[in-house]
């Protein structure tokens, strides 16, 4: 019973930390604008002139924007705080390291979901329909949490240079969008291509989005959701375990 009270208390403090992250992140205007524009331009540069149907483009665009925005805040918050010398004070508050990590992930999650609504609205405006909006919303939320957790994993190496972490995360993020069925759907990939696609969590979200919008998914929805859930759990456990070790070394 006492454990439950502590979990609730720490969950509440995670929300406090998430709100703080969002406030600070938004105060860095250029970072936010770049975080939104980059995936849009990247997407356009690979789709423009290919005469693609709107209902093919929108799932890819949503997946891409969700992936980039949800992985934008979580990798840099901890190095940022270490560099700005706010981390030690935060760590001496009655919060666990896990609480800090979840807070940072929630901030990234909220940013990802919030921004991804824009391409969805654009799609609806252009006439696409979402056949199963409950599944789609569930997938969006789960995927945002999954990507935000992945972003947090990037910040594990105890470097206090946000630019270094940004480089690490870009090196991973960039290839991921090319192997996740964004530009070429899964069923048009050769077997080896599909095998690579399956290691990317973005593949499973894109698959659900294609299922809900284009009506052609490659995998059963339940499989997509379960794999996303498994990836989320994996990233969370890795982030929590390893930050326990590296966070104290940053101060």
């Amino acid at each position, binding site marked *: 019973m006492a454990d439950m009270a502590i979990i609730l208390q720490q969950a509440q403090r995670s929300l406090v930390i998430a709100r703080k992250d969002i406030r600070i992140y938004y105060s860095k205007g250029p970072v936010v604008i770049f975080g939104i524009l980059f995936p849009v331009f990247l997407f356009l540069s690979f789709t423009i002139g290919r005469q693609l149907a709107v209902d093919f483009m929108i799932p890819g665009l949503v997946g891409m924007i969700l992936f980039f925005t949800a992985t934008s805040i979580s990798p840099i918050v901890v190095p940022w705080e270490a560099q700005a010398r706010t981390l030690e004070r935060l760590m*001496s508050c009655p919060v666990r390291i896990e609480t800090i990590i979840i807070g940072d992930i929630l901030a990234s999650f909220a940013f990802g979901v919030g921004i991804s609504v824009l391409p969805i609205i654009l799609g609806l405006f252009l006439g696409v329909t979402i056949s199963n909006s409950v599944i789609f919303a569930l997938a969006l939320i789960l995927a945002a949490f999954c990507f935000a957790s992945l972003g947090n994993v990037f910040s594990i190496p105890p470097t206090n240079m946000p630019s270094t972490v940004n480089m690490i995360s870009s090196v991973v993020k960039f290839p991921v969008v090319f192997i996740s069925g964004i530009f070429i759907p899964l069923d048009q990939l050769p077997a080896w291509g599909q095998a690579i696609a399956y290691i990317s969590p973005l593949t499973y979200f894109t698959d659900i989005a294609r299922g809900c919008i284009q009506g052609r998914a490659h995998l059963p929805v339940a499989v997509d959701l379960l794999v996303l859930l498994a990836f989320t759990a994996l990233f969370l456990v890795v982030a929590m375990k390893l930050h326990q070790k590296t966070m*104290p070394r940053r101060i």
Partner: protein
Amino acid sequence: MDNDVAIQVVNLTKYYGELLAVDHISFTVRRRELFGFLGPNGAGKTTTVRMLTGVIKADEGGASILGYRAGSLKAKQVAGVVPEIANAYADLSGWNNLMLMSELYGIPASEARQRGASLLQDMGLFPRKNDAVKAYSKGMKQRLILCMALVSDPEVLFLDEPTSGLDVQSARLIKDLLQGLNAKGKTIFLTTHDMDEANQLCDRVAIINKGRIVAIDAPEKLRMATSATHSVEVSFDNVVSPEVLVNIPGVNTVKKLGDKYRLYTANPGELVVSLVNYSSSHGLKVISLNILEPSLEDAFVALTEKEAKHG
């Protein structure tokens, strides 16, 4: 657990690779005590505070704060912390920083607002409370950090060199506040390398050097215990070389301090007589002559040097 104990440290140890930064230290801080942790740079003060506040883990030994294991949520809940190098969030206002802290400590909003406002008043920050912290001066930032440590009304306060590098006014304000808090019954653990500060503020002082505690006592007792460091301060109307002074009977060491000399001796009374004799036989006039009690600094130097010889 003894109800009178605020901080209990047993065998606390931290290695950084090969370096033994904190070497099996043990001590007790009583409730309501203003306890000084005094040592030169690199002595292990910050490392100790970080272990006590749960920011880093000890390699051996441990500590408890009001009976709670250091580093546990409960121990952190009852403590307020001013780390050595810490900033408030520069993009947030002073007020928002303060409210953020109170939320992280789970302080009810109305209580937090009330205490926050009164702390900012006390620290002279209230008129600037809505400005982003990046516009604050260094002294203002440090005062804000102190407010952030106090907004949860902690029973035990840890401060790591809180006045170091500050303007005189901010330092004075902070010292006054600490004395006030201590008078109200808060336990304060203060690290410093400033002898005067320790002497003015602390009930008891632990002297730490190279990760080890070399003495713990009231500043006055530490001072008196260093019997070898009585001294006489003298100035003459003409130049006298230190080599000459060191040959006067009873003088152990000579230190030049501007236009004065400080002569260390075991027997200041006899030395005064020798000095007067010396000056009259050499046609010099004594301009000033003072017998000095050993300072806390003398005690500190004696203790840390002794340690260096043994180590």
